[in-house]
């Protein structure tokens, strides 16, 4: 397998390396970075054109933000309403406090069905709870049906984006995977031919496997309906052909009313893929006699979400409708792709969602994986102020660190105490400047930049250059200028 595709990725935040370490192999992989940059440039250009076409874009964002915030503020009531209406329409609602419970509920349902195989619509929530490996370990084979997910599943790769999970894989890498795993040696790397190969590969599975698993884009409290937004029709296949449908959804996915979709649907496709509307959106309400699955289960997953709800600033994280516009616009994601984030949720939203889902026990490095430029906030269709949450989580991380380490051995603490003492008095400050100028001269290159510093200084210089100190400080220049002026006056 080619190098870019086989870059190992650990997406379990409990096991993943901190971002600055995880990012190193990616930065040394030009093919992967090229694939990511290409895909993102295409989406961004399309998005920009179609967003510009909507004269009421900002009004839509304001409405979407308010609807999502309102839904979260009243989440208990709306969840209960959803449960009641969905059950009245013939669905069965389950509640899962954590990933483990969700996995067990799904396995029990599959065992009831005597299912040894299951077809899946792309769902990031199922990736979050690491469902596929669990099912496999328990004798159930899960078949992904979204094209990108098939590429990843057959290539044994990890997703690097929440909307286009295989955007880090290029056509020749896809060809390699399909040729090997589908036994199609003659396959070319034409995307059309590759797509047709996937169509043929899955057709029989759709027609023969009677159990399906999906995620949900929206749960409608008013009617108990569930909506799935997709492009390929694999969703429609899974939603109509099987006998049993199992949907897993985070508890935050609720919208108060059916009508609220008029706002979300206008924002979602434009933000996600740069289309006026995605090819297919399906909505179903419990079970409909004579049409589609006759057994329907919804699993409402908490897995750390209710603890995010608790905090005023952080609550907005849960407004997310998973469009991925924030990662497409992020200058950090553009360079690194998704794997360095060590989570199925990469990019800016991942940087705030993942550590919070982990209740700040893991992934604490992610809030620092940002330049705080604010581009993510600007594009977010539901106006999540990601930089604000990033800063809040950084503060929490620093406080945690402070509690954990002995103060007088903490370089950050010592450094700041010294800085505090130096900056407190002008004489000390000038002396430090003078010393620094001499000391840093050793490391300053001919171009006036410092590219490497020893010891603690390397933490800065390993990822960025530092401008060498100027020959003269402003103070010195000012003082000289006054002396000059005085001389001239005499």
């Amino acid at each position, binding site marked *: 397998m080619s190098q870019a595709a086989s870059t190992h990725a650990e997406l379990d935040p409990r096991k993943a390396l901190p971002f600055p370490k995880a990012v190193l192999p990616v930065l040394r992989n030009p093919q992967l970075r090229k694939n990511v940059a290409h895909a993102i440039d295409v989406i961004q250009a399309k998005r920009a054109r179609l967003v510009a076409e909507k004269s009421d874009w900002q009004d839509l964002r304001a409405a979407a933000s308010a609807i999502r915030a309102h839904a979260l503020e009243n989440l208990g009531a709306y969840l209960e309403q959803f449960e009641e209406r969905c059950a009245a329409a013939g669905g069965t609602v389950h*509640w899962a406090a954590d990933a483990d419970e969700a996995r067990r509920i799904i396995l029990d349902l599959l065992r009831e069905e005597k299912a040894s195989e299951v077809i899946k619509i792309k769902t990031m929530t199922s990736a979050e709870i690491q469902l596929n490996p669990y099912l496999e370990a328990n004798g159930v084979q899960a078949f992904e049906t979204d094209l990108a997910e098939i*590429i990843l599943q057959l290539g044994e790769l990890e997703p690097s984006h929440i909307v286009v999970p295989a955007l880090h894989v290029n*056509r020749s890498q896809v060809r390699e995977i399909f040729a090997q795993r589908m036994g199609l040696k003659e396959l070319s790397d034409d995307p059309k031919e590759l797509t047709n190969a996937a169509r043929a590969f899955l057709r029989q599975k759709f027609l023969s496997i009677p159990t399906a698993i999906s995620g949900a884009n929206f749960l409608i409290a008013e009617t108990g309906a569930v909506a799935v937004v997709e492009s390929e029709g694999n969703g429609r296949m899974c*939603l109509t052909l099987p006998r049993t449908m199992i949907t897993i959804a985070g*508890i935050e996915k609720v919208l108060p009313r*059916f009508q609220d979709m008029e706002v979300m649907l206008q924002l979602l496709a434009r933000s996600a893929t740069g289309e006026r509307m995605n090819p297919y959106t399906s*909505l179903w309400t419990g079970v409909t006699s004579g049409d589609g699955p006759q057994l329907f289960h919804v699993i409402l997953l908490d897995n750390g979400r209710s*603890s995010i709800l608790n905090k005023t600033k952080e609550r907005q994280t849960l407004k997310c409708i998973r469009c991925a516009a924030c990662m497409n616009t992020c200058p950090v994601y553009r360079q690194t792709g998704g794997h360095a984030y060590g989570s199925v949720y990469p990019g800016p939203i991942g940087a705030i969602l993942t550590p919070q889902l982990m209740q700040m026990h893991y992934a604490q490095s992610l809030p620092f994986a940002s330049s705080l430029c604010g581009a993510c906030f600007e594009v977010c269709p539901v106006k999540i102020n990601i930089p604000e949450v990033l800063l809040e989580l950084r503060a929490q991380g620093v406080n945690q660190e402070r509690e954990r380490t002995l103060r007088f051995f903490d370089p950050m603490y010592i450094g700041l105490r010294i800085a505090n003492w130096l900056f407190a008095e002008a004489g000390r400050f000038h002396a430090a400047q003078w010393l620094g100028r001499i000391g840093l001269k050793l490391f300053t290159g001919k171009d006036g930049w410092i590219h490497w510093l020893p010891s603690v200084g390397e933490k800065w210089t390993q990822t960025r250059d530092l401008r060498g100190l100027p020959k003269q400080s402003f103070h010195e220049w000012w003082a000289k200028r006054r002396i000059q002026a005085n001389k001239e006056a005499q």
Partner: protein
Amino acid sequence: MIGMLSSRQRILDSVRSATEGVSGSPARRAEAYAALPRDYIRHGKLRAKVRIKLMIERLREYDAEVTETTPAELPAAIQARLAASGRHSFVVPPGVPDEWLAAGFDWKIDRNLAIAEIEEAEGVVTASSCGIADSGTIVLHHSESEGRRVLSLLPDWHLIILRASQVVETLPEYFSRCKEPPELITWISGPSATADIEMTRIKGVHGPRFLNVILVHDEVGPKKDPELRTAENNSAKAE
């Protein structure tokens, strides 16, 4: 079961205590909901003719094939489209008018057809419930004349009959017409597609690869915010 019940209680308790200061009584919640800002465009401004033109333009941008006709000439228009497709075997939902089943083709009416029979058909002809010009979207409510969901999914070629009077300009207009949300809805915007390989848009993955629309000019003068009429009412009326 006991474990599930306790998780339900635990999650709801935790959600409730987290939102204690901000959530309210049902009355306060309804009030807060009603006060949500909705300054986006809810009513279109285009004249009927321009609206229909936009609908057609947007459909064509998705690679859908669109032709226009009048109610009287609809059966002939269907016949012409079927002939042009080079296909012979078609399925239809049970509620479409007999006039749609053009002579010279092999028709199967979906009265509990087996999946294999639908899969074998080369095409499907259905009515529809609404067209949204702004995004080129056609909405199916899966009534008797639109068929169950699988019917318009398995055949590779889908012909949708859309009436001009069903076309609104904006998505919010569809929702405000849709006072009683149906149990099943499919919003279709162009044929099945993917861009998963290098963001190259490929038409046709699992759903129908060919989307065809006949737009029927049945305009009978302006109506004041009509309720969304179901597709069979419309088709019955046109005959």
